[in-house]
């Protein structure tokens, strides 16, 4: 009972003291505000990044492997090392499809960007992909309307195309696109299907998109000196390691590599990106923790400094309080509460600023940065730790004052 009465009293005393020394209190609080805002905003950014990244990366299945000339993650030096590798060919893709036992679908893929025209309307820089009917499975490319490429379309190199959702919108508007002839990079193709809406993938609009049989791609745009990529869908995500092993074996056999030769191709998968990303955010977290620790320290020292000044200035007051019955613990709490109140005000302002900043980031960039509920708990931890840790020395100094000397202090 007594402790609660005094706690409340302590809050009032602290509030009174902070009001009496406004400038000083504001400056001290600013230290805490900067620290809290920085840390919470960085955390919000990281979380926004996580959110954005996992959303993007989910487009690549965990059960898909990509046989390519270059690995996804490499340094500049790696590029010079790998560029002399043999290109991956359509024939190799056919061999892989014939030999891979753990694959449900194997699709060769080659791409370019071309303009698509229909009568007076054009869409520029459309991603054109040459592939086979397996692409429907490996890339989960389901037609929303019409049909996807058939095996016959591919084997007879028919001039047909499946177009992306946005291309269909822009070229045909209300018209039915099926059966219409469009001009892709100077060649005529007949529209047989429209893909469902896909959205963005790492900055590429996947709805400004068209799929044509790989043979038709070859005769229309040529593929000499170009490497294709082979997309392989594995029976189940659990089998991804085994499938990678199997594909490595097939590719090494096709390329007649000796036992000591290094692989001259790369097998890419989603987890590579995930690992890379996690390494990258590890650094960000370290920065956040570092900044947090430093600002905590600086803010805390500011509080300690202000409290020491305050204890000296209020020596007489402490003497009076002791003379009329304040115990050591009462004085101790008075100053600890004052320290924690500076922190609390700083943390509240800091959280509000961080929420504002995150909203600005979320509104002006593609990052969905957001402050989550647990920062409130983080804030509480901040208040208690900084306040207690840096307040305890000045507070105990005040509590230990001899009342007679304190009363005599000028």
């Amino acid at each position: 009972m007594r402790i609660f009465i005094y706690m409340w009293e302590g809050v009032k005393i602290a509030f009174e003291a902070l009001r009496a020394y406004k400038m000083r209190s504001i400056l001290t609080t600013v230290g805490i505000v900067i620290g809290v805002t920085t840390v919470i905003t960085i955390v919000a950014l990281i979380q926004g990044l996580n959110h954005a990244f996992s959303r993007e990366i989910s487009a690549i299945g965990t059960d898909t492997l990509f046989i390519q000339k270059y690995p996804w993650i490499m340094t500049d030096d790696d590029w010079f090392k790998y560029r002399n590798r043999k290109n991956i060919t359509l024939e190799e893709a056919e061999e892989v499809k014939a030999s891979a036992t753990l694959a449900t679908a194997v699709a060769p893929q080659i791409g370019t960007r071309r303009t698509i025209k229909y009568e007076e309307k054009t869409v520029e820089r459309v991603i054109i992909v040459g592939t086979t009917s397996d692409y429907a499975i490996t890339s989960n490319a389901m037609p929303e309307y019409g049909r996807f490429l058939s095996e016959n379309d591919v084997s007879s190199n028919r001039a047909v195309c499946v177009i992306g959702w946005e291309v269909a919108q822009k070229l045909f508007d209300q018209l039915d696109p099926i059966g219409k002839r469009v001009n892709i990079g100077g060649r005529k193709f007949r529209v047989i299907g429209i893909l469902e809406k896909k959205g963005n993938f790492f900055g590429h609009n996947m709805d400004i998109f068209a799929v044509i049989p790989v043979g038709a791609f070859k005769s229309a745009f040529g593929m000499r000196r170009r490497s294709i990529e082979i997309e392989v869908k594995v029976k189940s995500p659990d089998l991804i390691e085994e499938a990678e092993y199997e594909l490595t074996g097939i590719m090494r056999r096709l390329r007649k590599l000796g036992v000591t030769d290094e692989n001259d191709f790369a097998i890419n998968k989603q987890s590579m990106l995930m690992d890379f990303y996690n390494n990258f955010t590890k650094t960000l977290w370290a920065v956040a923790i570092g900044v947090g620790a430093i600002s905590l320290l600086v803010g805390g020292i500011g509080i300690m400094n202000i409290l020491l000044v305050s204890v000296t200035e209020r020596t007489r007051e402490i003497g009076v309080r002791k003379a009329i019955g304040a115990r050591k613990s009462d004085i101790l709490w008075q100053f600890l509460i004052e320290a924690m109140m500076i922190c609390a005000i700083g943390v509240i302002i800091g959280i509000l600023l961080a929420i504002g900043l995150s909203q600005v980031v979320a509104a002006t960039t593609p990052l969905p940065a957001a402050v989550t509920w647990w920062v409130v708990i983080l804030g509480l931890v901040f208040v208690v730790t900084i306040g207690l840790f840096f307040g305890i020395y000045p507070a105990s100094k005040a509590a230990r004052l001899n009342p007679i000397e304190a009363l005599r202090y000028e």
Partner: protein
Amino acid sequence: MLIQFNNITKIYEIGTVKVEALRGITLQIDKNEYVAIMGPSGSGKSTLMNILGCLDTATQGDYFLNKNNVSEMDDDQLAEIRNREIGFVFQTFNLLPRATALHNVELPLIYNGTPASQRKKLAKDALGKVGLADRMHHKPNELSGGQRQRVAIARALVNNPSIILADEPTGNLDSRTGDEIMEIFEDLHELGNTMIVVTHEEYIAEHSNRIIRLRDGLVERDEAKHGS
């Protein structure tokens, strides 16, 4: 018997030098006495007052206050005794500058956990007794010296203590205001309070019924006045 001092000594050690401030003081003060403690500077009267007020403890000897042996108490127990048994009135008033008169008077009640509503009532009553009911929301810098000292007296009274202990209560006041304060003291005495006033001025001591004179850490003379 309210106060019993048995052969109290107080020795300060300043570096290697020992200073004997009190060299064996034995005295008794009864309830509702009005005592003045006098003596030249260095006589030990400040030390005696600090021990009487439980701000300090004796090096040797026993001090019984209301039958409690104060000489054996620790800091927290002393704080509680000061809160409950003693009302201080200082020469320099020692009010909290940023708090209102009312809040200053409430302070002792805060430290013994009196609930807020009761606190307000008791503090207002105490301010009424010293004639400051209309000044309770003023801060010390909005009050005259005499008014400030009256707030301090109200603060000393509010917990209904066994002793009111005043250290040169008129030292910072002009003589007319000082007389007003001494009148309040006499009223308080008549109401049954035990008053102890430390002073070096004879005319202040004149108000009391008993004068204890100290010299060199000993009681030089202890005399009751006529007509009391």
